[in-house]
């Protein structure tokens, strides 16, 4: 081997090692100062929260971001090989699905009791940490609030043809469809899904893309969670989009939670769940992501409609999990996903 080749080779190997050490952070299962979190919540929204946790506890967090439903399926696929210690989900349904697959550890009662029973698993395997309402976001340049219906069922009307956008693979959308199945049954839900499909909606990958589609005039209404609007508005105050709340008990006004379940009984994992339900974590949801905090003593932002006044359909969030796999099938059957 000539000297030049040898130098090249050494350079290659050192780069490889540098990259390897930097990237091979996944296998931190037994390391007491590390925690692996599967995050169904986007980095833009909760990235700073993980940093605060690291600063507060000295525990380093390795985060795998993805869609909540995707991560729930990944955990199922990985089984005992899963590196995940905590599942931080965007909705209760994905948590329930992992719980019913037997993947979640029981949570300590003192932690569960901080949250209203409506917002946690009846069997104590996951707990909600922030509340969110389903809303219909709309283009303020083209629509007035009075022109919007007060029920999600009205959007199958032909006048909404080519004007609707949403993300059919998103966990929060799936949870809303599960809620509709629980309240009005599978037949009517499938009819609604097919009715929406017949209106040629624009199908997007996530909630932020849905709002962007409204902002650029591609669609006029979008089925989303309430807080993405504020995330975008922070950067673009003149965003021509507003949230519309549907009537009480309509499946379209489901109040869902983001929540955590623990796949490991390590103290670091418990510490993380506790952090989210402490005052600091709850304040983050109230002020930084514009969600509803779920413990007493922390209030939501004034510009939000108070949580007591947003009344979703009558169901417990614990019911959503068992419905998730068949809901995904139903959405596919309606032709909204391939």
């Amino acid at each position, binding site marked *: 081997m000539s000297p030049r080749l040898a130098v090249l080779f050494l350079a290659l190997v050192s780069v490889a090692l540098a*990259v390897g050490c930097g*990237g091979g952070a996944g296998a931190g299962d037994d390391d007491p100062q590390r925690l692996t979190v599967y995050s169904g919540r986007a980095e833009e929204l909760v990235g700073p929260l993980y940093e605060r946790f690291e600063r507060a506890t000295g525990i380093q967090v390795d985060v*795998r971001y993805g869609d909540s439903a*995707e991560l729930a399926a990944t955990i199922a696929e990985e089984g005992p*090989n*899963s*590196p995940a210690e905590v599942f931080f989900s965007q909705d209760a349904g994905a948590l329930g699905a992992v719980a019913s697959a037997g993947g979640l550890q029981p949570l300590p009662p003192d932690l569960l009791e901080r949250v209203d029973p409506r917002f946690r698993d009846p069997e104590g395997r996951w707990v909600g940490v922030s509340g969110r309402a389903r809303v219909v976001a709309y283009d303020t340049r083209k629509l007035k609030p009075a022109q919007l219906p007060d029920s999600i069922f009205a959007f199958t009307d032909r006048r909404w043809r080519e004007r609707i956008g949403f993300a059919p693979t998103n966990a929060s959308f799936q949870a809303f469809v599960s809620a509709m199945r629980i309240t009005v049954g599978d037949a009517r839900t499938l009819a609604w899904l097919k009715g929406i499909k017949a209106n040629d909606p*624009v*199908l997007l990958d996530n909630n932020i893309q849905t709002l962007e589609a409204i902002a650029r005039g591609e669609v006029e209404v979008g089925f989303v969670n309430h807080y993405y609007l504020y995330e975008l508005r922070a950067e673009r105050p003149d965003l021509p989009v507003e949230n519309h709340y549907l009537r009480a008990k309509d499946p379209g006004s489901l109040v869902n939670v983001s929540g955590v379940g623990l796949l490991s009984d390590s103290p670091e994992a418990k510490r993380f769940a506790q952090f989210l339900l402490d005052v600091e974590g709850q304040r983050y949801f109230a002020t930084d992501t514009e969600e509803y905090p779920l413990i007493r003593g922390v209030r939501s932002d004034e510009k939000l409609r108070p949580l007591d006044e947003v009344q979703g359909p009558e169901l417990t969030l614990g019911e959503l999990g068992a419905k998730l796999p068949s809901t995904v099938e139903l959405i596919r059957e309606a032709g909204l996903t391939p």
Partner: protein
Amino acid sequence: MTALRSRRRERRGSRPLPSFGLTVAAVLVAAAAALPLVYLFVRAASGGAAAWSVVLRPQTAEVLTRTVALVVVVTAAATVIGGALAWLTERTDLPLRRVWTVAAALPLAVPSYVAALALLATAGPGGALSSSLSLEVTGFTGAALALTLSTYPYVYLLTAAALRRADPALEEAARGLGRSPSAVLREVTLPLVRPAIGAGALLAALYSLSDFGVVSLMRLDVLTRVIFQQYRTLFDRTPAAVLGLLLVVLTVIVLIGEARARGRAAPRAAPTASRPVGPVALGRWRAAAVAFCALVVGLALVLPVGVLIYWIARAETGVGLDAGIVAPALGSLGVSLVAGFAAVLAALPVALLVVRSPRPWTRALERLSYGANALPGVVVALALVFFAARYLGAVYQTLALLLFAYVVRFLPQALSGARTALAGVNPRLEEAARALGRGPRSAFAAVTMPLAAPGLLAGATIVFLSTMKELPMTLLLRPIGFETLATEVWSATSVSAYSRAAPAALLLVAVSAPIVLRMVVRRDGARAEAEALGAG
């Protein structure tokens, strides 16, 4: 006795038995290359009737039709555009010919999803120019346009190289006999370069069949995107494996079709020396020809680069150049360098075996190693995620697995480079070194390696380039926290943060451009390299 027989064989110099170590290494490499496909079969077969029913759904038929339509449209458009550009730059008095020669190939440095992003930003729904142009480039039109702009350079490079090599006497004779320029083109030039055009069309077809980034950005439900969506949303992931097999079948059909077509085309003797053919005068078509070249290069090269620069300039507080880009850039460079090197290392035993001991079974090993050509990235990733999550907990979500995927996927590129390089080294030279007392390894290292090094390096370069741009495998297999420039572009655009995506995308283009430039300037190598590159 045995020694005597083997010495006799060596003296005859015909096909010595390959060494045991080499054989084992080559078999291992071929087995590794076959692993994703084998496991995909196993997984799909284990799914039972429920999983296989996905094949019979009417939606699947729609997706298949859409996929085939996209491949056909892109291949046809890329062939026409690439072929026309090659003819214009090689055979006519096109103004600024030398500039167009290079500019027409440079879009190879623009990853196809970046081209798609630029189209969306300008002419997509709500794009900067959509309302004034009153058109919306998205869905099928958008995907077909972006993929055509990204794949025509393959046809262009291969056809231009064939035109340069073609014996000019044929075309001159036809012209001398009074044929019109269009008749010469139709009756002489086209048949001469048909095999090259076919090879380019094959690359365009394979590329559009396996593309994931463009169709996702354009929201077009073709097989790759559907597989990814199924994987993401369904709790039972076996249907995704079944659809993956369907994609493999489509790819194999394309490969077989091309092989048949090539088999029918009569091979033409290479000329002893090539010299330029007197250019065809474009006459009153000159302006139209220049406009055509400018339009293609403008859309495929100037537009994407311009949009990226605009995004960076628009970002208020130097978002473009903050430290956030360092980790993905190092990640990209690191894995791409290692993948390029490792792929050549893996290709060596197979190439050596088939070059030095051509027998039916060594050729079978080689063909097996080329099998990854039929495996789109989504499929390799899916198979490896399934396999590792279940059976290889130790390497699951590690860089080792990601690198393994790169090597398997891009092995064909390294292999074609290594094969050509080794075939060009006369084995007598190594034998002479052996006769002078060198051991087999020492003789190989001292004689063959240095001679083959440029060819091997070219193979490594192509793998490097492909790995830099790779998206679906990186998305599914990367360890937690590991970012590349490609994933950075992807995650930023999925939340519409274009100013964050722009620096990473521009860096990708900047790293790729010199490699593509070198390919165009070193004209002779262009053919083999473009061919190898197409596998990405």
